[in-house]
């Protein structure tokens, strides 16, 4: 709904407020009068009429009204067929990821407007305060309106470049749902769905397929990843019950990977790594995984990738080699930097330092399964 109204008015604030008003009207009227035959159409029409009224009343915005050439007749509820309401989420996501917005604003806005995350949740995912994120979102929406960022899918020539940011946002949405199953499990499915839409839109692009394969592989292990009475205890990969993995889904992901294996892109490589992980613990090809991480690190220059490679290096070359890599990274604000150091120090028998590292990780950890895991590890270091 939001997408349709943003498309109509080019103004996020106006669209959001009129959607809220429409729902409020529905909440008042529908219990007494009954739900209309096309509830979605009713809501869109009502929201649109509210926005038109507001534009008429506000003289500053009246110029915008003339620009849109809206007729003076308000559209009645029966005029709009539900099938006429287009799914404009793709326009919305590409607008949110327009290069005229700062990258961090693109990501935040897509998470807010397309995935519907609360500002506070988005703030946590990016290690900033709620206030900072709120300001970021407001600036982005204002920029879209004031600078005239169009509501559209980029032309074919522009699409590949614009896609990179969209894929990054898509993956972040997935990770939010994946790591916080209690609060946001549905986001993982939403992200996979978005990924499928992008694949359908761009059948000749490999990276959307790489990302989809990656998300499917992660999600296939979801049921084995958590245990305990309330499903909030983390189970490490090596200890996961392979019977609980979604093998048909893993097969689908592996089919995708086979089709795109010649196109070496960041998501495709991460998916290849995830696919190698999905084996029996004593049959995991760690040297091959370490090699893929090296390829990925060279491609992206990302310290987080180098951090992730440490686990594979530890398995292939031992924890000391891995710790040497990790200690060279500047990631002190990143939870997994500390938890990885903790693991490696623990394996090296340096329990005092391991405990300190786990405690640093705990200070940054927000997901319940991860907090519990870290507390267990800290207790084991006594």
């Amino acid at each position, binding site marked *: 709904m939001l997408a349709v109204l943003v498309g109509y008015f080019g103004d996020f604030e106006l669209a959001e407020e009129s959607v809220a008003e429409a729902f409020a009207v529905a909440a008042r009227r529908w219990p007494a009068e009954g739900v209309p035959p096309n509830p979605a159409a009713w809501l869109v029409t009502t929201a649109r009429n509210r926005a038109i009224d507001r534009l008429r009343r506000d*003289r500053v915005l009246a*110029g915008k009204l003339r620009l849109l050439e809206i007729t003076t007749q308000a559209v009645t509820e029966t005029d709009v067929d539900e099938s006429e309401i287009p799914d404009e989420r793709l326009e919305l996501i590409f607008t949110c990821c327009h290069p*005229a917005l700062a990258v961090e604003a693109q990501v935040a806005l897509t998470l807010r407007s397309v995935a519907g995350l609360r500002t506070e949740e988005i703030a946590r995912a990016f290690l900033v305060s709620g206030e900072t994120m709120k300001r970021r979102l407001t600036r982005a929406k204002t920029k879209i309106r*004031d*600078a*005239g*960022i*169009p509501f*559209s899918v980029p032309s074919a020539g522009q699409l590949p470049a614009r896609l990179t940011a969209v894929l990054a946002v898509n993956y972040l949405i997935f990770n939010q749902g994946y790591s916080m199953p209690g609060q946001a499990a549905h986001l993982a499915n939403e992200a996979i769905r978005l990924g499928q839409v992008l694949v359908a839109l761009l059948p000749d692009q490999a990276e959307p397929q790489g990302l989809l394969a990656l998300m499917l592989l992660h999600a296939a292990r979801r049921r084995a990843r958590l245990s305990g009475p309330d499903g909030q205890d983390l189970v490490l990969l090596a200890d996961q019950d392979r019977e609980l993995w979604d093998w048909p889904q893993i097969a689908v992901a592996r089919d995708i990977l086979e089709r795109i294996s010649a196109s070496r892109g960041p998501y495709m490589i991460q998916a290849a790594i995830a696919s190698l992980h999905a084996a029996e613990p004593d049959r995991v090809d760690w040297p091959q995984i370490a090699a893929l991480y090296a390829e990925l690190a060279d491609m992206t220059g990302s310290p987080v990738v180098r951090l992730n490679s440490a686990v594979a290096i530890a398995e292939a070359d031992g924890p000391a080699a891995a710790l040497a890599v990790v200690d060279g990274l500047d990631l002190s604000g990143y939870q997994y930097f500390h938890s990885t150091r903790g693991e490696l120090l623990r394996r090296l028998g340096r329990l005092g330092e391991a405990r300190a590292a786990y405690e640093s990780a705990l200070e940054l950890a927000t997901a319940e399964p991860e907090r519990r895991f870290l507390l267990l590890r800290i207790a084991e270091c006594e």
Partner: protein
Amino acid sequence: MQYALLIYTKPGTVEALSPAEREELTREYYALRDEPGVLGGAGLQPVETATTIRLADGQPLVTDGPFADTKEVFGGYYLIEAENLDRATEIATRIPALRIGGTVEIRPTLGPAS
């Protein structure tokens, strides 16, 4: 929507052009001014011709030189009418300054006073 396209070049890059190249650039600038949607514009004379005025202790103070000694020099502008930012960007990409390492800032103008 109305946009201002503000043109910046790196010092010395315009001066380094041959007379023929500079003539070609000038021709393009004028041609662009005649395009539909371009409301007006002007090239500015070099920064050595600039004079700056500000208030100091409430009194106007006139000094030699441009507003700021920056790495990039403000060299000219266009005023254009465009449906949205992408259309404005399309016009901006045709500005010759870009080909000699320059930058163009695209900023919407304020609407009429309410």
